[in-house]
Structure formats: C-alpha cells, structure tokens
C-alpha cells in the first residue's frame, strides 16, 4: 500500500482550476520530488493533503486514511514545512518547538527537540527569537518545527530558498539521514539540481495537471543523458 495516494484530485478557486485530476502515489521511505513552475498547483496540493484546503473532488489517502474524514490520524503523520517563514514572534526557537509538539498532543521531549536543533545547526540559537535569526536560520527553524512531533511523512515546500550552499549541503545530508530512518519525504523545489541529487522519484506538474511521475534513474536513462532541467523545460515549455 502506498503511504500517500492522490486519485483524480480536483480543486478550483473560482474559474481557476488549481488542481486538475491529479493522480499519483508515493511509496513509504522514498524521497519524492514534486516539481513545477510557479502556479503549477504544488502548494494547493499540499494544502489539500494537510486539511488547510478542502478538495472539490477526487480521493486522497494518507496511510490509508482520508484527511477530510480522519484528520486527527493524518495530521499526526504529516510534518509540513511551509513556504512562507511564519513564526509567532513572542516565543524563542525552543519555545516554538515545544508549543508545536504540545499542539500535536505529545508530551515534552527536550532531548528530541535539542537533537533536531543540533542537526539543523541551530543549537546556539535555541533561546533566540525568530526576529534575531537570518533567513537561512528561519528556514531551518521551519523544518525543525515540522519535525517537532516526529511525523512519518515530511513535506518540504521550497525548503532551501535563501539557504547558502554549505548549509544546503548540510540539509541534504540531514534529509538523507531522515530517509534512512524510514521517513518519507516530499520535496517541492525550484532548484532542479537539488531534486536530481536527492530524489528517488520525480513528479512534474504544470497548470494543475500531472505531466510526469517516474523513477529518477529511469527518467534520466530514458532521456539519454539529458539532465533534469532540460527534461523539465521540454515538458513545461
């Protein structure tokens, strides 16, 4: 059974069809890259998955459960790193993580939260308020926030925007580590070389439609040495 399944998912905002019969599945433990130009419907799809938006039709299953019918189950399984850098500025980094974990109904676990901060190079910013953090640090704190309840599926919406190369490499290493631990990771990104380096499966979306879902190795082999960027441009042009 796939860990995530989308079947003919449709969502419109007025006349705009943001999602047009999106269908694909994600296997447990894979790193799945969801790619597409701006306005492709990636964020809308993530919002349908986490219950921020209600789909118009189609079916979504998270570990066999529908997020609209059993949200308390599916929400526990999902950790979402949103695209916008959003924090409650009244609280420090560690307080933000404690609150996030508590809002998921889990008891405090300082050792786990400190481990996340360490892995994301934020230990020395443990007690800093978000306003005192750089863009890259805020981005990493967003990832830490999504991991605070130790979800099985981590969804990262543009996680490396504004993060410098060294820290980006660090983040890749951390994502691979999480994947080795058995977490399923869905990544949306505009950095195609990032998707090419990290992903097991590539999904390309444009104008609300799925254009391609394929194993990365197969995709690159089938296209005779073309890199992902060239394939992406060909498909979305």
């Amino acid at each position, binding site marked *: 059974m796939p860990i995530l399944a989308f079947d003919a998912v449709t969502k419109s905002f007025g006349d705009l069809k943001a999602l047009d019969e999106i269908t694909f599945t994600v296997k447990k433990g894979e790193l799945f890259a969801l790619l597409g130009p701006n306005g492709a419907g990636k964020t809308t799809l993530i*919002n349908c998955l*986490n*219950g*921020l*938006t*209600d789909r118009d039709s189609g079916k979504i299953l998270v570990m066999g459960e529908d997020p609209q019918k059993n*949200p*308390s*189950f599916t*929400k*526990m399984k*999902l950790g*979402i790193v*949103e695209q*916008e850098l*959003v*924090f*409650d*500025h*009244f*609280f420090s980094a560690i307080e933000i993580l*404690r*609150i*996030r974990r*508590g*809002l*998921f*109904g*889990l*008891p405090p676990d300082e050792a786990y939260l400190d481990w996340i901060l360490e892995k994301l190079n934020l230990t020395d910013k443990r007690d800093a308020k978000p306003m005192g953090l750089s863009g890259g640090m805020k981005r990493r704190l967003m990832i830490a926030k999504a991991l605070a*309840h130790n979800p099985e599926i981590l969804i990262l919406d543009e996680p490396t925007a504004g993060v410098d190369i060294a820290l980006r490499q660090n983040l890749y290493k951390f994502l691979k580590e999480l994947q080795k631990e058995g977490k399923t990771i869905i990544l949306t990104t505009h950095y195609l070389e990032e998707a090419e380096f990290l992903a097991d499966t590539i999904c390309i979306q444009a104008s609300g439609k799925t254009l391609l879902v394929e194993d990365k190795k197969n995709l690159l082999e089938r296209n005779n040495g073309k890199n992902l960027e060239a394939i992406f441009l060909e498909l979305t042009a």
Partner: protein
Amino acid sequence: MNLIRLRTLIYKETHRFLKVWLQTLMSPVIIAVMYFAVFGGALGSQIAEIKGIPYAVFIIPGLVLLQSTNNAFMNPSSSLIISKYSGTMSDLLLPPITPMEKVLGFLFGGVVRGFLIALLIFITAGIFTGKFFPEHWIGFFVILFLANGLFSILGTIAGIWAKTFDQSSSISTFIITPMGFLGAVFYSLEMLPPLAQKISMLNPFFYLVDGLRWSFLGISEVSPYLSFGVSLGLFCVFFAINYGLFKTGWRLKI
C-alpha cells in the same frame, strides 16, 4: 479532548500577553484608576450615595468589568487576526486540535487575562476605598468567569470573522465599548428616565455589571437570578456559535 493540546494552547494564549504585561495588564489598570479618580473622586463628591453605597465604591464593579471584558475580548481577537496576517494560522490548523479544544484554549486565554486585570483593579480600588472583599464569593467568581468568558468568546468570533485589523477593532470601537459604557457602569437605573431605563435593560452588559455589583456589594437593580441567567444564557449561545465556526473552519481555511 487531549489535555496536552489544550494546556499548550492556553499556555500559548496566556504567555503571549504575559510577555508584554506592561501593555496588556498595567495599561488597563491605569485607565481604570484614572476613571476611578475622576468619576469616583471628583464627581463622587457631588453624588452622596446610591442604594446606601458611596458612589466611589458603587462604580468599582462596573469599572472592573469595563476593563477586564475589553481585554478578554482583545486577547483572542488580536491573536487570531495577527495569525491571519503573519501566516501563523497554520499553527492552529496543521495540528489535530479539535474544535472544542480551540474554543476552550482561546476562551481560557481571554479569561485569564480578564481575571488578572479584574484582580489588579479590585486591589487598587480597595486601597482607595477600603472595600476589598465581595459579599458573595461564589457568585463573584461565577459572574467574573461568565463575563470574561463571554467576551473572550466574542473576541474569538470577531477574530475568526475579521479579515483586517480594522474590521476587528471596529467591533470593539462600535459595539463593545459603547455597550460597556451604557451598561449602568457609572449610574443606577433609578437615575435615568423610564424610557432610558427600558433601553438599558436591553443591554446585555447591564446584567453582567448588575450581577457583579450584587456579588461584590450586595446591591442590585434586578434580581441576581435574572442577571446570572442572562449571562449564562448568552455564554452558552455564543459558546455554541464559536464551536460551530471552528468545526466548519469558516474564514480560517484557505
């Protein structure tokens, strides 16, 4: 009901205002003291007693409610509208918080703020008047809870409804504040002409003030049962509305 989730939401809603306590707690207390000094001190000398109670003491319950309920209203409304603006609404929508936990979390956030302000104003007023303790302890805490709880719920509904800071503050400016001032805070109904008395009795705030006045001073304009009944009724109705709004996700979902 998950108690960790509820406790965390209450923690979040209370610590946010405690971190800026000068603005959120001391400011309303100072305003109340100013009212007390002007109305109780200067004007009070012109009005001997109302129902056998010195005027400066008579206005204490109303002044307390004016400030505490206004802040109980602002706590959830500003929290929700800031969340809408800053994008942190997802903090409320991504975790599996149930509608009941959301209602109670915001309710208690506002109630704690309202209670702290009420307590500080009662103590400050007591220093000036010598009247520290209520006549009916249970009624005192019940009506304080119902009043601050009701306004906290109204603030939550306003925060859910409002799309802008302007909309949110307009409810406070055009509905909550006038309702408070015209709720027999500074006067007794006996001092009004008959028509104004009838109009005042249509104001829900009047019953909150009268209920608190009965429990604190032992005097009232209408039966305390009526005051407590109206307060409880309004509390239950708006509690149910608030629950329904969180259940549907109206104006919160994208």
